């Protein structure tokens, strides 16, 4: 029995269900932590609509994570189809971290202020410039062919890649979503620029996936059916990575823009 999905080169795909215990445990752990944080946080100051939205965000994150990591998408993405692997990346590395951060009430982040060293570390780590570089380095390294072919064939390696995506995503979204540490200078226009830059940036793995004449990942090239033309699948994966992440960034830009406009309209006019 496997605890995490991993690449098994040369092994034929089967539609026979297989349990992935580690994925279930991770999902249960996330739910448990969320409920615990909520039980210790007074979020009554937030409107019931906002509280409901946060719970919906959490439920959506959990469903997306579970669906993308468990059978069948988990093994398909780990071992057979690079395009499915990129869908997993969009979920684990971009969408789910944003939803998880949004799922917590603002008050849940307040206790962090009690730890000056942690605040200092967070201040550096989640500084927009740091976050931008950390996210892009993590995404570049975790999609690098040598790294993928080295780590994906083991459960631990595959798990490490997923955790790296999740952490990279959390760091990326932190300065946009989390109020601690405060960043009053991070103007909405700066946030929009931050997102736009990430949406349009051409990372090396994307360029390799789209423009390489040969498949760059051995695990997908040597995968038996349902994998078929590894080069087409790889190009589709590149498109999923780029277009998918750009749409998520674009949606976030719209949300930030809307909040900005609402805040501006609420501001009392100066005499």
């Amino acid at each position, binding site marked *: 029995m496997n605890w995490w999905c991993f690449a098994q*080169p040369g092994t034929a795909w089967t539609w026979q269900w297989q349990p992935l215990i580690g994925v279930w445990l991770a999902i249960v752990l996330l739910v448990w932590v969320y409920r615990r944080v909520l039980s210790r946080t007074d979020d009554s100051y937030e409107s019931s609509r906002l509280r409901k939205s946060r719970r919906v965000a959490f439920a959506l994150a959990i469903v997306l994570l579970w669906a993308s990591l468990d059978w069948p998408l988990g093994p398909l993405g780990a071992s057979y189809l690079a395009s499915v692997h990129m869908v997993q990346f969009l979920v684990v590395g971009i969408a789910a971290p944003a939803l998880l951060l949004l799922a917590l009430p603002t008050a849940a982040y307040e206790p962090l202020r009690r730890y000056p060293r942690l605040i200092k570390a967070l201040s550096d780590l989640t*500084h927009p410039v740091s976050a931008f*570089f950390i996210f*892009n*380095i993590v995404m*570049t390294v975790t999609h690098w062919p040598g790294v993928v072919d080295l780590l994906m064939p083991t459960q631990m390696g595959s798990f490490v890649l997923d955790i790296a995506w999740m952490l990279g995503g959390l760091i990326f979204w932190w300065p946009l979503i989390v109020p601690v540490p*405060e960043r009053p*200078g991070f103007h909405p226009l700066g946030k929009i620029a931050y997102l736009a830059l990430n949406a349009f940036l051409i990372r090396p793995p994307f360029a*390799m996936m789209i423009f390489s004449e040969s498949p760059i990942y*051995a695990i997908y090239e040597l995968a038996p059916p349902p994998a078929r033309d590894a080069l087409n699948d790889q190009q589709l994966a590149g498109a999923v990575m780029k277009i998918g992440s750009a749409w998520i960034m674009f949606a976030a830009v719209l949300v930030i823009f809307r909040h900005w406009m609402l805040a501006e309209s609420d501001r009392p006019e100066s005499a």
Partner: protein
Amino acid sequence: MSYQIKPPLKLHSLAFALILFSSVSSCGIPADGDSVGELRGTVMEVPILKPDLVLTDMEGRLYDLRAETDGYLSLVFFGYTNCPDVCPVHMATLAGVFDELAPEVRDAMKVIFVSTDPERDTPDRLRQWLGAYHPSFLGLRGEMATINSALAEMKLPGVAVVPGQHGSGPNIGHPSAVLAFGRDGLARVRYPFGARRADWVNDLPLLLSESP
């Protein structure tokens, strides 16, 4: 409290260097990082002579392997169309290779798929299955005794039939490597499962130039 856009310098210098490195190093390297200009297949100490094998092609005509492939670089593989793993991967890889090769290299080569499951691999089935990969791939079939004799002649393991489970057809054990017979009829290099498209694209022109 004023907010300063002053990131920790060391971290960002490192990050910038890493991104710059990854951008530069991603340009123009082979997919698997192997060297260009050297054979990447497994070079055999003792070359294998192309077997004296007369089989039936997908149209039901007799096909003399030596005579029909004389003067060509011949990639010969023993497998079966119901194979769940090695055979489809080799064929898909070679199909991709054919798309990438120069026409003069492609025209000097033949890909021969010898069925190790002649009962299920009918001519129609072979034509349909191989045609899905590449129209130029040729399927051959014959008696199992003939196939096993040819494998023995090449000092390769014979065909092993393993009964299938849950009502599925039998699984057929067969050699997993593709043999590359040069124009002189000798195979000096073989390509086990794991050979990648970039390996083939690198090796095939070399093999053609080595056996004029």
